């Protein structure tokens, strides 16, 4: 009982404040949603990269992450037993589209992956089923990469999310997650070929993502919306600043950048490569977590009082 009692007391404090922090996504069970988003993002990017760099292990890892992401999403729901209803509003709801995308990917991925891993399996690599699976997985992957940003853009209650840059940002982070997944896979396979290409790709994607994020923050600050500004304050100097500096910057950018720098200028040990991948993925997670936790509701009273 004390958990929901604590939630009630916190609700009263929030309702009293000028800027009501958004807690439903990100806190308590809401954490599962962030973890779900993270896995789905990395899985989608991983699948794409694995296809490009032809890494069947990468495909398997991505598929497992996607499945895990799906389950964690269900764990977050109030009534998981009604999950199938989430596909009924594809016409209007990005969450619905995301759900359909993940479902397509999981089904298609399974059909495509089985013959890749067990060539002698029930159906062959070149069989119709496999080709169908590949197609479905591809569509699913594209949706998984793209839909998440739009979910935030559609959230008019939280001005910080309600900006047009979010989709691009999440696409970027999905790709970065993919590169990270591939690096980790290659490290596990002790396979170092094309590593330089991967590192260059990682740098490019990271630069893009960081640029988007800076643009995002700048957009929020200059938007003239007090709630958006308050979110940035929470991000840079408020409740979630630890996740921003520690998670996004240190773990997500500086550490991997250092490893990349050592990798470029000298031999990259397998361990370093794996650490680079994990750290970069960790950065992705904290980016999503910090952005969600920094969300602040649009205040109904336009001007804050004398407080």
């Amino acid at each position: 009982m004390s958990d929901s009692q604590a939630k009630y007391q916190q609700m009263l404090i929030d309702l009293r404040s000028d800027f009501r922090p958004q807690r439903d996504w990100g806190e308590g069970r809401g954490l599962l949603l962030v973890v779900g988003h993270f896995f789905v993002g990395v899985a989608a990017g991983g699948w794409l990269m694995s296809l490009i760099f032809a890494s069947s292990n990468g495909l398997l890892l991505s598929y497992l992450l996607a499945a895990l992401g799906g389950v964690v999403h269900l764990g977050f729901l109030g009534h998981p037993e009604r999950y199938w209803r989430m596909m009924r509003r594809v016409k209007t709801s990005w969450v619905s589209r995301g759900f359909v995308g993940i479902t397509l990917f999981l089904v298609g991925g399974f059909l495509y992956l089985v013959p890749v891993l067990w060539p002698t399996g029930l159906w062959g690599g070149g069989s119709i089923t496999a080709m169908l699976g590949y197609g479905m997985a591809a569509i699913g992957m594209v949706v998984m990469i793209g839909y998440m940003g739009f979910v935030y853009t559609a959230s008019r209650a939280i001005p910080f999310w309600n900006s047009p840059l979010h989709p691009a940002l999440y696409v970027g982070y999905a790709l970065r997650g993919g590169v990270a997944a591939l690096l980790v896979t290659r490290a596990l396979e002790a396979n170092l070929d094309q590593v330089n290409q991967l590192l260059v790709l990682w740098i490019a994607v990271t630069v893009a993502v960081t640029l988007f994020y800076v643009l995002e923050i700048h957009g929020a600050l200059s938007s003239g919306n007090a709630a958006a500004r308050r979110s940035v304050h929470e991000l840079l100097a408020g409740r979630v600043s630890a996740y921003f500096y520690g998670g996004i910057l240190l773990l997500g950018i500086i550490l991997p950048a250092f490893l990349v720098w050592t990798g470029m200028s000298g031999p990259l040990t397998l361990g370093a490569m794996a650490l680079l991948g994990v750290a970069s993925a960790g950065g992705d997670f904290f980016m999503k977590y910090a952005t969600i936790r920094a969300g602040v509701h649009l205040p109904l009273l336009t001007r804050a009082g004398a407080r």
Partner: protein
Amino acid sequence: MNTAAPEFAVAADDAWVPSSCSLCYGSCSILAHRVDGVVVKIEGNPESVVGKGKLCGKGVSGIMTHYDPNRLTKPLRRTNPKKGLGEDPGWKEISWDEALSELAEVLKKVRQDDPRKLVVQRTTTVTAGRTPFQTFAAAFGTPNFSVSGGGQHCGNGAHLISGIMHASWSVVPDFAYCNYAMYFGASKGHAAGHASCSNMGLAADARARGMKMVVVDPMANFAGAKATEWVPLRVGTDAALAMSMANVMVNELGMVDRPYLQARTNSPYLIGPDKRYVRDPESKKPLVWDTAANAARPFSEVAAADMALEGEFFANGVKCQPAFMKLKEHLLKFTPEWGESVSTVPAKNIRRLACEFATEARIGSTIMVDGVTLPYRPVAAVAFRGNQGHMNSTYNFFAVDLLNQLVGAADVVGSCLGFNPASKGFPETGRPRYVPTADEDGLMVTGMWMGYHYPYPAAEPRMPKNLGLQDLFVMGMTSPFLNSIDQEELWQKFEVPYRPEVLINFGANLMMSIGTSEVVAKSLERYKFIASFDLFLTETSQFADIVLPDASYLQSTDSRSNFPFIFSLPGGMGEWCWPIRQEVVPLDGEQRRFSEVLLDLADRVGMRADLNAAYNASMNLQTPYRLEGDNAYTFPEICDLELKNNFGPERGLEWFKEHGLIKWKKQPEEVYWRPFVDVRVPVYWEFMVSMWEKINAICEPRGVKIPQEYYDPLPDFLPCRSHLCQKSGFDFYAFYYRDTIHTNSFTMENPWLDEAAELDPFSYYVAIHAEVGKKKGLHDGQLVWVESEAGRKVKGRIRLTQAVHPEGLGIAACAGHWGKGMPVARGKGVFFNELLELDFDHVSPNNLNLDLCVKVRVTPVEV
């Protein structure tokens, strides 16, 4: 079509029961929706005039007070004889028979010894508690009756002067016609108070119609928040502002209603050098100067138009002036510039407000209402709790009402009305019929009153027999001396022949509602035996020997939940309305209704005959509806008799249970009764002169100095203790006010109301001026100590706001519970009354109202 036999008609229980709310003394009419034995909704009763189908936030939340699991269900007996603030009573559950027989034994002994040793005390919240407890005290034979903090803080000034000047319990603008309402320390339709829900609608309609509302208040969070103009002022200086305005109206503008002053006030009465009336030697009637006959003659023999208001004359061999002349000269010293120095209201605003008020009054105009031509004065200066909660209680209120009297805006169309001062009663029976009358000096005596003493003419001061010393301080109503720190010293000085021994308390939580808890605790420890009717274990019931679980208002029957009409029936035109309260759901546990317990107790004490006689006298029951001998009537039977007595034999309790109320049309001659009733209102309080002499004659030889300036016939500004405090660092005037979402200290236990208060910017906070707060390094929400000069301290959180006077410190309601019996209320809000000293030095020497403003210092709490 034959209907199913009752036992087969298993209609699901789904009923809307008409009854009366009890979340505050307004007692608005409600419809309680009971489904399968559970009250699931409380709404206003559209049929009723009291609330007009609406309820405030408290009314609709009554469900959660009724179903509060912390409510008492069984009588409790104290096992730990030691009483004190931290003392655990060690409650033991006992039966009603044990409880009442023990209480009856104690009462019998006291009644034998000296019935005056019993003190009966009730909360103001339950209006229906008035008659049962007053009649019990009268039957028992004790004059010591009190309405605890509800009376001590709020009303000795407001009710006294509303009675003397408007023949009613309180005053309110005639919202239907008023164009310019000036509020002094009152909310009238914006927060709480008498008929508050009805007034909310009426005031909103008036504001929407364009009524200008000027609110004089140190804080702008209720009436001030909706005001056309908020006039912030230094706490407790209302009289300075009002007298300066009166000076401008009389001496600078000369805009007064001379015909009204001549015909309906004692302005023309000639005043001698000894400040008293010059009386006709034979008839003893006050003389006036007859300008037609150019001679002094008794007021009753001169046409009003011929009475002089100004000038200097000789009568009975003494130099004299009309009372109005005395007032006119008295006002000269109250210049707007002086007014500004005391109240901080800029002089130019004082002049403008006075001019607006006098102009809007449209002196001399008349209007037709329901075919009757009546005087029309569409202005009203009203005051209530905030205005009179000071040392200068009487004059703060009197000065404000002077503004009405000067322009004739008293109980006429659009003006300052008393709440229903006159009624011809239900057309078929003419009951209850009351109308103000004139005493032998022609001055008004109120027709109906809440207590059995009347505000005017005041009784003769005498050596006190009441513990509250009201028979010495005859202008006093609720008295501080039942709990003050100097009670014993004063009782000894005035040779009060007995001491209080037994207290019967009904719901009052005086530990929180009067003053410093430590002082009140000591007064409670002196009682030999305390029995307390309560809904919850309060901080006060911790001192009781027996606690009796009261039924809630949804389980009670009362024939007079709104009686009398002067208390909380909305003023102005419309309809008379007599609602009742009836059970919606049966009693549970061993809860019993206080009204029935009192009857049971009367039987056990053996005073049923006296109680029946007291009911006959107080309810004015006429044959054949009088209570006979010592018959053991039940309370519903008494209710039935009263309803038949007033509305005819076929309209008893059953009829009212079905209809919920009865209403009939108000006549213009009832609502705007002043032109029809030949009574004069005292603009010059001549009776104060002799009153002071008699009181001081008793007090001074006993070392109790009564300052004569509090008994001058004309109002003045007299500073509170807080205004005299010069100690450095003490730079806030702390005051407290009624919250719209709370009633006294009662409703913090209601979780819906507590939740709403938690979200309110002011309810549980200490409000100070934003710039002043920042300069002292205080930030919003900071935990601070608020400390009085005498070292009393309370903790609270700061709310920085622009809506308070720079020197003001505003605290809401009577909050800050610490007892465990009300867990939802515990620790919520700020316990303001802890700052109030409770002694003769801090009450008005005129009407005994407690001084509610304190000079305080604010310091952060080291966390």
